[in-house]
C-alpha cells in the first residue's frame, strides 16, 4: 500500500515485423520510499523494458504501474534515468550536461542556482574541477559519474539505473559502488537498478529480484539483511557467499537449466 513504486502484474508484448514478442508476462514489484531494489535476470528477458515501463516511456498491455500513489500513463519529471552508455552530449561541458534536465524541469530556475546544484553533485561523486571539461576528456568511470549526476540533478523521487556500471572494469566498478552508497546517503531517492553483477546487487540493494527468462515473471525475491552503508569486505563473508549462491541458483533456473546441468 505505501510502496512508492508499485508494479502489479504487468504484461507487455512488442509488436514487431517478425510478429508478436511477449516480453513481460506478469511482473510484480514493490519498492518502499527510500528503498533500493536490484533486478537481475537472463539476458534479453525484458529488464530494460521494465525500466521503460516505470519511466512511463512505454505503456503495459495489462497490469498497472503506480508511482507515489499515481498511475503512470506517461513520462514524469520526478524520474531520473541513467544507462550503461553514459550518453553525455559531446558539445556541452560536463557542467552543462549535468544541468540539462533542469532546463526542462525548472526552466525558470536562475542559472546560478542550476550551476550550484550541479557543482554540488559533481563534487559529491568526486568530479570537482572537471566542470568545464568536455565529456571526451573524461575516463569511462568519470563519464558514468557525470551521467549519474545528470540523472539526480532535478531531485527525482525515483532513480532508474539500467546496468549503469556494466561497461566498466572491475576496479572502477567497485569505486563506483562506493560512490553510489555515498550518493544514496546524501541524496534521498527510491531506486531500481538493473544489473548483471550479482555481487553488485547484494552490495547496493535492500532487495534483489530475479526475473525469469522471456516472457518474464518475477521469479524470486531476496531481502538483503544488511542495513545502511556497507564495505567491500562484506562481500567475502559466508553470509554473502550464501546469498550469492542462492541468486546464482535462481538465475540458472531462470535460464531454464537445472543447476546440475550448469555444473554447479
Amino acid at each position, binding site marked *: 500500500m505505501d510502496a512508492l513504486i508499485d508494479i502489479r502484474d504487468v504484461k507487455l508484448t512488442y509488436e514487431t515485423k517478425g510478429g508478436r514478442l511477449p516480453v513481460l508476462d506478469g511482473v510484480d514489484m514493490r519498492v518502499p520510499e527510500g528503498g533500493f531494489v536490484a533486478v537481475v535476470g537472463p539476458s534479453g528477458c525484458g529488464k530494460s523494458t521494465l525500466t521503460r515501463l516505470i519511466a*512511463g516511456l512505454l505503456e503495459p498491455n495489462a497490469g498497472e504501474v503506480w508511482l507515489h500513489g499515481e498511475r503512470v500513463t506517461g513520462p514524469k519529471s520526478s524520474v531520473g534515468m541513467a544507462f550503461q552508455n553514459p550518453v553525455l552530449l*559531446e558539445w556541452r561541458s560536463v557542467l552543462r550536461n549535468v544541468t*540539462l534536465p533542469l532546463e526542462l524541469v525548472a526552466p525558470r530556475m536562475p542559472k546560478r542556482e542550476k550551476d550550484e546544484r550541479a557543482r554540488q553533485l559533481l563534487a559529491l561523486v568526486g568530479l570537482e574541477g572537471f566542470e568545464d571539461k568536455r565529456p571526451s576528456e573524461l575516463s569511462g568511470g568519470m563519464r558514468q559519474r557525470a551521467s549519474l549526476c*545528470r540523472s539526480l540533478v532535478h531531485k527525482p523521487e525515483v532513480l532508474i539505473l539500467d546496468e549503469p556500471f556494466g561497461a566498466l572494469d572491475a576496479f572502477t566498478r567497485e569505486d563506483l559502488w562506493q560512490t553510489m552508497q555515498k550518493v544514496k546517503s546524501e541524496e534521498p531517492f527510491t531506486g531500481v537498478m538493473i544489473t548483471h553483477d550479482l555481487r553488485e546487487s547484494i552490495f547496493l540493494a535492500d532487495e534483489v529480484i530475479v526475473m525469469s527468462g522471456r516472457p518474464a515473471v518475477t521469479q524470486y525475491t531476496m531481502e538483503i539483511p544488511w542495513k545502511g552503508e556497507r564495505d567491500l569486505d562484506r562481500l567475502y563473508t559466508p553470509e554473502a557467499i550464501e546469498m550469492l549462491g542462492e541468486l546464482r541458483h535462481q538465475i540458472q533456473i531462470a535460464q531454464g537449466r537445472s543447476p546440475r546441468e550448469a555444473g554447479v
Partner: protein
Amino acid sequence: MNWRIFAPLIALVVFCLLWEALVWVNDWPNYKMASPSDLGPAFWKFRWLFLEYGWDTLWRTVAGLLLSVFVGLLLGMIMGLNRTMRDALYPLLVGFNAIPKATVVPIIALLFVGAHDMNTILIAFLISFFPIAVSVSIGLSTLEPEYRDILASLGASRFTIFWKIALPKTLPEFFGSLKVAVTLAFIGTNLMEIVEPHGRGLGHLFDSGKISADYPLMFAVLIALAALGILLYYVVVVLERTFAGWAERSPT
C-alpha cells in the same frame, strides 16, 4: 613563420613554376595552353568584368546553397524522423540524384528562358541538396535511443528532443555534407552560366573566351573559379569549426 600558411603558398608557387616550365619546354603557343605569365595581362584587361561576373557567380552559388541547406535539412528531418517517409522518399531521391545534371541544365534553361539568376540558382540547388538531405536523415535516424530517453523520460516534446539533442548531434554530418554541397553548387552555377546565351557570371566569361579564342582569358577564368571555390570551401570550414568544433578531437 606559420607553416600552415607558408606551406600551401610554397606549394602554389612551385605549381605555377612547373606549369610555366611545362609550357616553355614544349614551346606551346598561347592557343594550345596559356602559361601563368599570360594570366596577369588577361586579368588586368578584363578586371571589371572579373569583379562583376565573379560577384554574380558567387552570390548565385550562395543563394542556391542556402536553398539547398533549407530544403536538404527539411527533407533530412522528414526522412530521419519518420520511417514511412524515409521508405517512400529515398528511392525517389536516389533516382533524381542519378540523373546527370548536365542533362537538366538545358531543360531548366528552356523552361525559364532569360531568367538567368533563377535558372542558375535552381541548378546550383538541384545539384547540391542531395548529400545534405541524406546525411541529415542518416544522422537523425541513427540516434541511439538512450539519447532520446534522457529527455523523453522527463516528458520532453519531440521538438525539444530534436532541438537540444538530435540537431546538435547531427551537425558534424551536416557540415561534412555541406563541404560536398558547396563544391557541387559551384559546378551547377557554372554549368548554367556556360550554357545560357546572353548570360552573366564567370561561366559566361569563360564561354566568351572560348568564342573569341582568347585562351589566356579562359585560363584566367579557371583560376578565378578555383579561387572562389577555395574561398567558399573555407567559409564552410570556419562555420564548421564554430558550430561543430567539439566533434574534432585533439590528437593525443
